[in-house]
């Protein structure tokens, strides 16, 4: 396997765009990435696309084919990747692998989404053989209820307070206000968060992410391609994909085996561990993390589950400001899902864009000082997890 560099990144801002199609959003992100890479469309040798469940793609998740038809049908191979909310991370992994293998020198990775209005159901299948469907009809438990339950258990185990949770949302918006691509750019006070409506006890409206429209694109290439463009390229140190393990303590359907240990979110933890192993790096080497903060709870649980701190320690890191861009462990300097809203399959690619800007030193008021190594992570329906480490 050879080294892979990020040649260019580009995004369409996140929001709700009634007058634009998913292909419009995609094209704007792809054009921005091509411009950033000083590249023209016919130079792209292959496309690795996240499949949307909600829009475009001819109803089959063929979103990569849509963008090729839009940009120009050059005959390039197209890979459409489906992995729930991890699809963007999955598409990045395939793009990385195809360049690392030596098969292609210049590949486009992108994810885009136009989300339906209101709360979405997790599964698209209405059959009693589908465990998600069975849980929805017999219990009535949408995604945020899982986060609330995990949060409430954590309060009992570690004494987490409602202020601890709210502080994470305040930090997210302190960062997101400086991000021109973010959908929600206002600052929040602790009181703003603590007086927002309860959604799934103890989680409140400003402590979970809504759904958004958005698009992100990344062009990956060989070292030779990178050196044609810059003397200081951003490299992909590792890119991994995993699925959850049998001993995971969070049931994915109606039930699981009562676990002996405390393995949770194993798809994410496995992907992150493998990303560290493949890169020959560890938590102490990481200057910033872009993690999937569908909810503030993940900013407490994930750093612990990945070995960044001890169980029960995350609350004090947040309280001391250590997860801010100026702290020891900056988390989601972009503003994260809380400020962007989740354009599901675009998120894994959005994280790569933000990390690239951070490593180039181009992140403006949300810049992590002297960032050299960055870690990203997604997880999605079906027990899909991905991670990537970028470095300069």
């Amino acid at each position, binding site marked *: 396997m050879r080294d892979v560099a990020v040649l260019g990144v580009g995004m369409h801002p996140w929001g709700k765009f009634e007058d634009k199609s998913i292909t419009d959003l995609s094209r704007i992100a792809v054009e921005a990435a091509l411009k950033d890479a000083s590249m023209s469309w016919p130079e792209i040798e292959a496309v690795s696309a996240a499949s949307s469940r909600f829009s475009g793609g001819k109803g089959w998740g063929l979103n990569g084919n849509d963008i090729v038809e839009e940009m120009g049908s050059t005959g390039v191979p197209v890979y459409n990747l489906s992995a729930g909310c991890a699809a963007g991370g999955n598409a990045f992994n395939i793009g990385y692998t195809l360049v690392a293998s030596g098969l292609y020198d210049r590949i486009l990775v992108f994810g885009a989404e136009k989300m339906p209005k209101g709360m979405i159901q997790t599964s698209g299948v209405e059959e009693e053989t589908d465990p998600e469907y069975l849980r929805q*009809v*017999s219990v009535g438990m*949408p995604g945020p209820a899982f986060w609330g*339950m995990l949060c*409430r258990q954590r309060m*009992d185990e570690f004494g987490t307070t409602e202020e601890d949770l709210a502080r994470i949302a305040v930090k997210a918006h302190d960062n997101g206000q400086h991000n021109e691509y973010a959908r929600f750019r206002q600052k929040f006070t602790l009181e703003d968060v603590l007086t927002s409506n309860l959604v799934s006890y103890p989680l409140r409206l400003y402590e979970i992410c809504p759904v958004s429209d958005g698009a992100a694109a990344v062009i990956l290439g060989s070292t030779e391609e990178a050196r044609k463009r810059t003397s200081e390229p951003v490299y992909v140190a590792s890119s991994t994909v995993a699925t959850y393990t*049998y001993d995971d303590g969070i*049931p994915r359907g109606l039930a*699981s085996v009562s676990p002996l240990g405390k393995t949770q979110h194993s798809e994410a933890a496995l992907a992150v561990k493998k990303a560290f192993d493949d890169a020959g790096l560890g938590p102490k080497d990481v200057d910033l993390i872009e993690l999937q903060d569908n909810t503030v709870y993940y900013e407490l649980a994930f750093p612990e589950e990945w070995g960044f701190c001890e169980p029960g320690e995350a609350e004090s890191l947040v309280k001391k400001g250590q997860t801010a861009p100026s702290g020891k462990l900056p988390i989601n300097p972009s503003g994260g899902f809380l400020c962007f809203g989740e354009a599901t399959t675009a998120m894994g690619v959005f994280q790569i864009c933000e990390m690239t800007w951070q490593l180039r030193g181009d992140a403006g008021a949300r810049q992590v000082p002297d960032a050299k190594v960055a870690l990203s992570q997604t997880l999605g329906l079906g027990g899909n997890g991905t991670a990537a480490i970028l470095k300069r």
Partner: protein
Amino acid sequence: MTPVAVGLFVETSDGPRLLGSKCATCDTPYFPKAAICNNPNCNGSNLEDAQFGPRGTLWGYTVQYYPPPPPAKYDEPYQPYAIGLVDMVEGLRVLTRISTHAPEAVNVGADVELVIEKLYTDPQGNDVSTFKFREVRE
């Protein structure tokens, strides 16, 4: 009452039970019934029908403050309800409704027992039932 789904639970002379499977080789419990043992450490799938219940411990819970999206159904006007994760004595971890009139006052770590109760009334006027757990009243 009409069960919300076929083959999930049953009322026996000893009280309500969940219907599932258990692997005779590795003792792994499954709910609902499974076709094959998916424990990667099992030496050979050998599933038998099994009933689970009624006792367990509440691991964690939440309150569902907003009406859940379809296909979940509920009676109008919508009333927030508690959802929890129960570790049953048989080694099964189950996601479930919590039967309570005070959803905010549920206790993590409480002893709970299985009940079959109404979930909603369908458009034809029939009550539809599901499995729930409630705190054991000593």
